[in-house]
């Protein structure tokens, strides 16, 4: 069994007549604008539990969705049946819903057809040759590696492969089809020694097989889990916080999520009223780049069929550009950045963070007393900026070295202060296809714990 068995997904254009029929029907029924999408997906995955293969799973999905606008009011309907009578019923349903929605003068139009200047590669025919035996082999190898580090390790996780495609048509003349592939794996490892428990997780994902390193995660996660045994509570106080690549990426992804133009226009974002203002030191520049070849979040067009643009969201500390969909761009009278979703939301893509000039090791070495957060999020409230959260996988830094893991320790504050207190970004980084993830150092962060 392999993904290549499912040729339907490889030739999504065969479904173009259905989405075109749906859009035409919507127009005849009174929609001023409409777009329709058929998505197809095929997954194979293997689950690991208690250091053993537990199950092998497969699934395949088809879905149809139609979005219609009557006087700016939106109706949306979806189904996983592609039969003509089902599609027709759904179109009529969406029209009826749009008619009862409140007319919205801020809605101007759906995107018009555009030719993307660059189409990133996101489909790897090599992935189609994969089957469950490959996933089992990779999972088994990670378990074996983990046991090589600590024989009694408890490993759980999964390995999976996916192929998907979609076809889209709109009343403005858009006709698009897209195929993509992905491979992923993630493992969580636990080591126990008497009452001391350590755990750690790591993951890998790629669109192309050549970018995917299927093994090594079990070994790394077990090695780190061993380091996390014997965690201690620490003292409450202000300290320096170094966020490792995964933790820093969470913070920056949250920031870019808050740069959603709809949230800003609706006054519920921390970035409302901040356009052009300095929100962080000059060393912080964040760019959303959705057209990187083989990027995990890459695509030539967004969910509305608009061309994805490269957007610098934070430029040398200043908030300079929000991310738009067609609705928010028309409302603001600016160009659409191509970050729209099917449900009229806005989402970011791959993130590139401008690098600093010192390695993560050097950033840590300069800290006399601090904390290194390896996995976890500062999880700021993206409306108020308030931060109050747990430090999930963190180490105490003493005299420039990782000293011991911490437990039952929290962080509090506000995102505005935290951003202004960033004093370094590392020159080295973790790379997850499309995403450049350096570490970041923040001064004077309030930490709470229950140590003596």
């Amino acid at each position, binding site marked *: *069994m392999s993904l290549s068995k499912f040729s339907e997904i490889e030739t999504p254009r065969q479904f173009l007549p259905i989405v075109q029929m749906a859009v035409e029907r919507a127009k005849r029924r009174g929609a001023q604008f409409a777009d329709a999408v058929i998505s197809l997906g095929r997954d194979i995955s293997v689950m690991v*539990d*208690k*250091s*053993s*293969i*537990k*199950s*092998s*799973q*497969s*699934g*395949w*999905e*088809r879905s149809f969705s139609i979005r219609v606008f009557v006087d700016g*009011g*939106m109706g*949306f309907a*979806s*189904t*996983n*049946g592609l039969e003509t009578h089902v599609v027709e019923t759904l179109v009529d349903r*969406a029209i009826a*819903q749009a008619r*009862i*929605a*409140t007319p919205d003068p801020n809605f101007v139009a759906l995107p018009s057809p555009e030719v993307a200047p660059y189409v990133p590669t996101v489909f790897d025919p090599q992935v189609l040759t994969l089957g*469950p*035996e490959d996933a089992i082999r990779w999972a*088994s190898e990670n378990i074996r590696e983990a046991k090589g580090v600590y024989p009694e390790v*408890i490993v759980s996780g999964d390995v999976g492969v996916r192929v998907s495609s979609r076809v889209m048509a709109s009343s403005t003349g858009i006709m698009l089809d897209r195929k993509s592939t992905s491979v992923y794996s993630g493992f969580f490892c*636990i080591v126990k020694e008497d009452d001391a*428990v*350590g*755990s750690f997780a790591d993951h890998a994902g790629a669109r192309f097989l050549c970018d995917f390193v299927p093994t090594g995660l079990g070994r790394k996660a077990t090695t780190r889990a061993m380091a996390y045994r014997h*965690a201690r509570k620490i003292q*409450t106080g202000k300290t320096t916080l170094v966020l490792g690549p995964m933790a820093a990426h969470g913070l920056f992804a949250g920031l870019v999520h808050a740069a959603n133009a709809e949230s800003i226009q*609706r*006054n*519920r974002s*921390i970035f409302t009223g901040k356009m052009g203002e300095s929100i962080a030191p000059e060393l912080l520049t964040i760019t959303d780049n959705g057209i990187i070849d083989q990027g995990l979040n890459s695509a030539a067009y967004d969910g509305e069929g608009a061309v994805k643009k490269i957007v610098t969201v934070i430029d040398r500390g200043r908030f300079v550009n929000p991310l738009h969909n067609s609705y928010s761009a028309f409302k603001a009278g600016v160009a659409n950045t191509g970050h729209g979703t099917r*449900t009229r939301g806005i989402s970011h893509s791959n993130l590139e963070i401008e690098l600093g000039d010192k390695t993560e090791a050097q950033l840590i070495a300069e800290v006399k007393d601090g904390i290194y957060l390896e996995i976890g999020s500062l999880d700021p*409230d993206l*409306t*108020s*900026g*308030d931060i*109050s*959260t*747990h430090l*999930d996988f963190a180490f105490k830094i003493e005299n420039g070295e990782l000293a011991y893991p911490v*437990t*039952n*320790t*929290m962080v*509090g504050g*506000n995102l505005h202060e935290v951003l202004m207190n960033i004093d370094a970004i590392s020159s080295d980084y973790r790379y997850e296809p499309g995403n450049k993830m350096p570490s970041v150092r923040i001064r004077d962060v*309030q930490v*709470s714990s*229950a140590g003596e």
Partner: protein
Amino acid sequence: MGKIEMDSINQVFDLIRPVLERASKLGCAFADIRAVRGHGGSIMVQDGKAEKIFYSQNSGLAVRVLFEGAWGFASCDGIGAKGLSQCLEEAIALAKGSARYVSDPALVARIEPIRQESILQGKLDIDAVDPAKKQAVCLSLERAAVSAGEGKIVNSIVAYGDGSREMWIANTAGTEVFSSLGRSRVSCQVTAVEGDVRQQNYQVAGHQGGPEILLEMDPEEFSVKAAKKVLGQLRAKKAPAGEFTVIFSPTISGLLAHEALGHNAEADAIWTGQSILQGKMNRQVASDLVTIVDDATLPGKYGSEPFDSEGVPTRRREILKNGVLCEMLHNLETAGKFGVMSNGCGRAQDYTCMPIVRMSNTFFLPGDSTLEEMIRGVDRGIYLREGHEGYVFTERGEFMCHASEAQMIEHGALGEPLRDVSVSGLILETLMNIDRVGNDFEMKFPGTCGKEGQGVATDCGGPSLRVSRMVVGGSGER
């Protein structure tokens, strides 16, 4: 249920039976099939406009087989003989391909086969109320919030969603159950600004039932409440950082039951060594004031279901009694491994997912203290209200709960209001440090619990609780 409906139910079982027989003939130790058909809709009202109105319908089926200790699972869209046959073939091939790599063989507990139907819709069918009517109520709730906002509300959203799901479950042990279940949920989110301070409040209500929850909603208890609360948050101070005595109000104590204990009592976590409760059955793990129950049979509660996703009737499970661990949460596999019967906790998000061990409605039982008594004994502490979210690391016994509202306790009395804040603790320490359990009770926390990528409907609740020491993730003056 009329005859036509019964015929329709039997038609699906007629499709399923021969596939299960074939699974047995092909050497499967066990197999089960779920067929699911659902539909639902949602309405989002924002800033005075009904902006987005959604409808969805779908159907699909899942075949799961157990072959030589390995699970094989396949799902597809639609309900039909061809899909069933393909899924069976694929599930068996997947299980056979995995079997020789399995070092912890799966098995299932003894099953007492049942044939039952259960219809649990609300007072009103979700299709019986016109979307325009639902929309009008959402608009009036949203307007009420804005009216109560003293001109400081800058964004307001009321969202309503409902769904109905029909599910057929049958297995090779002879179980055939059918359920028809409705759920609905309404939420209100308001954002207010005063000077440089921007705050948000969120209220939610949900039940296992129909749109009556929306039509009967009292704005004063819902959207007006959200507006008043967000105005209070604008004036609230930051919580202090450090370790304090913490009192959980009934609006958040359920989150403690769910995160601090419930996930650790899931038998898959215990079997695999991922729970701090491993090896602690019949041992004291909490203060003797603490009794925690998970009950999927409570009428109308968001996490209630007549059967789990393995066709086992649900029931009340007394996890902790007076602090002693009495019962784990089981699905068929964990029950088999522990040598007991399943207590109906095998739940799947939808037909594309395998059932795993899950909670339903989880809560502390009330005690005999009054809130006043609890507060009176605290020199300096934090009173938490309005649970928002939480999570747990079961293997090392650490958890976090986030409250969207809090208040200082000083010298035995409630003091100034505090902004939203999180608390964290080590589970066994925290449960032992519960030194007062209130005589009040509330369970109104409908939500979606995530585990292994699957979300299922849950609720949680409890009385007021006092924990003598917890870490507070604050940032204000100590």
